[in-house]
């Protein structure tokens, strides 16, 4: 049997080992390397691609409460490409119904484009006889289906 003093020493060593093993150094490293402002900028850029949040704000400002908006962007579905643009719009644009134009397996959703009141196109121009441009800027454009009441 291990003598009592040796057991005690080993116990404390293991208890300290648990604390050291669990210590999260990430926050300390990040704060030392980048400072609060640096981390804030880095985290914010993880969330929003430059300009996209501003674009969505414009979309919200220029559409009516309850409007249906379909999201177009020249990206495929998969690993956060099209999904990012679509999901982020669902989160940031309040009081409107946001629809995808593309689905899993890159299935185009023409029905959604046809029935939406607006097309919000990010990173691509849209030319469609059924739609008129409402606004463009901030890396994208907003198009209204002709015939819907303004």
């Amino acid at each position, binding site marked *: *049997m*291990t003598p009592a003093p040796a057991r005690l020493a080993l116990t404390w060593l293991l*208890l300290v080992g648990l604390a050291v*093993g*669990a*210590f999260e150094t990430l926050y300390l490293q990040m704060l030392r390397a980048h400072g609060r402002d640096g981390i804030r900028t880095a985290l914010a850029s993880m969330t929003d691609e430059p300009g996209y949040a501003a674009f969505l704000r414009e979309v919200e400002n220029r559409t009516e409460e309850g409007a249906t908006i379909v999201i177009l962007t020249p990206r495929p579905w998969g690993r956060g490409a099209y999904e990012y643009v679509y999901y982020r719009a669902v989160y940031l644009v309040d009081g409107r119904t946001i629809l995808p134009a593309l689905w899993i397996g890159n299935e185009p959703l023409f029905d959604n484009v046809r029935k939406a009141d607006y097309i919000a196109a990010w990173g691509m121009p849209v030319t469609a006889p059924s739609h008129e441009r409402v606004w463009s800027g901030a890396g994208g454009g907003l198009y209204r289906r002709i015939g819907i009441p303004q």
Partner: protein
Amino acid sequence: MIPELIAVATLLATGIPVVYAFAPGARGSRVAGEAFLIGAGLATIILLLLSHVGIRWSAVALLVPLGVVALASLLFARRGTRTASVADAFQGSPAIATAIDAATAGVFILYVTFATLTNPWDWDFWAIWGLKAKTFFAARGIDWEFLGERWNEFAHGEYPPLLPLVFDVPALFRGAWSDRWTAIVSVAFSAAALLVVRRHVLDDTRDRRVAALATFAATGAALAGWVGLADVAFLAFATASVLSLRRSMRDGDSAASGAMLLGFAALTKNEGVALLAIVTLATLLTAKSDRLQRVLSLWPAFAIAATWQIPRIAYGLKSDLFLGEASSRFTVSRFVEAAQRVAAEPPHHPYFWVVVAVCVVFGARWLREEAFLASIVVLQFLSTLVVYAVTANDIAWQVSLSWRRVSDHPALLALVLAVVVLVRWSRSATRTS
């Protein structure tokens, strides 16, 4: 930030009399930790029930029932059988314990700084947990149409709703949705987990220094950086419930508080529903007496879980994990592949897990006494492997995406187990020499 702080304080204040009424053995920091968790759980139940009966959410509609529950618990606590606990005669230098606690507080402040620097940034916050909170707040109730909409599949309408509903509490106080200080709510769950672990280890080892070191070690999982995600809340509920049930099994106390917390874990993540099954099985396997009665005493957990699962099924929100589709994907080879992928992917804090394993090896003789806790830790790992084995995604991708985060779920229970058996091993030499 003020509405978030008021929300946390309100949930804490609501929970305190409930803990005194239903957890007679709770003392010290465990009361504060469990009180916040129970307050958060009660707020969830109230918001769910308001939604079910068609009452529009408001601060008043939430606060009145919360106040009634708190007052009723206060009366019950006075009439209850709260017995005087063992005198708080702890060993170990208070100065050393205080120094370690100061270091823990330093890590906590560092984490709070990091978590609140900006809006919650994780994809799962704004695509799942935060999105649902924001949507429910806008509707002032559960928006079943949104949850059932095909194009919103990514938001996982079938996931249990506790975290979004708790995020809505400060929004109801403010009267508007704000991302900015949502992290305060996440941080409160982290703090609750630390407070609960500290007191359970202290009660078990009676040594302030050991409790302080264990609490420091608990920061690894409790302050893991999953800001705005349900994992931290689940970790807190799972840890508090299992430790409370362990205590009630050992001391013959009421299981009501532990069962409530277990039910709230099931309202937080699907892993909580799995935990409900795991705890039931562990109780059946390891309770020394009155097994059936012990299992039946878990009824509040099932009742709480049902407040979401029944309407979820009624509204047709399918969770493929619990349906035939997932079980049809289970094969032994997929289970083996999941185990191999997990073995190849380091968990969060791998050295912590190595030391946990060493502690358990030294204290192996005392694992029988901790069969309930040990079996739950093992079953949690096994259930994670089963989930990976039945995933509709590529197993390797799923493991690489989530294993670091998911490996934190049983970390605090494993920590308490490791510390308790290690200290018993250490003291057995003192007694025999």
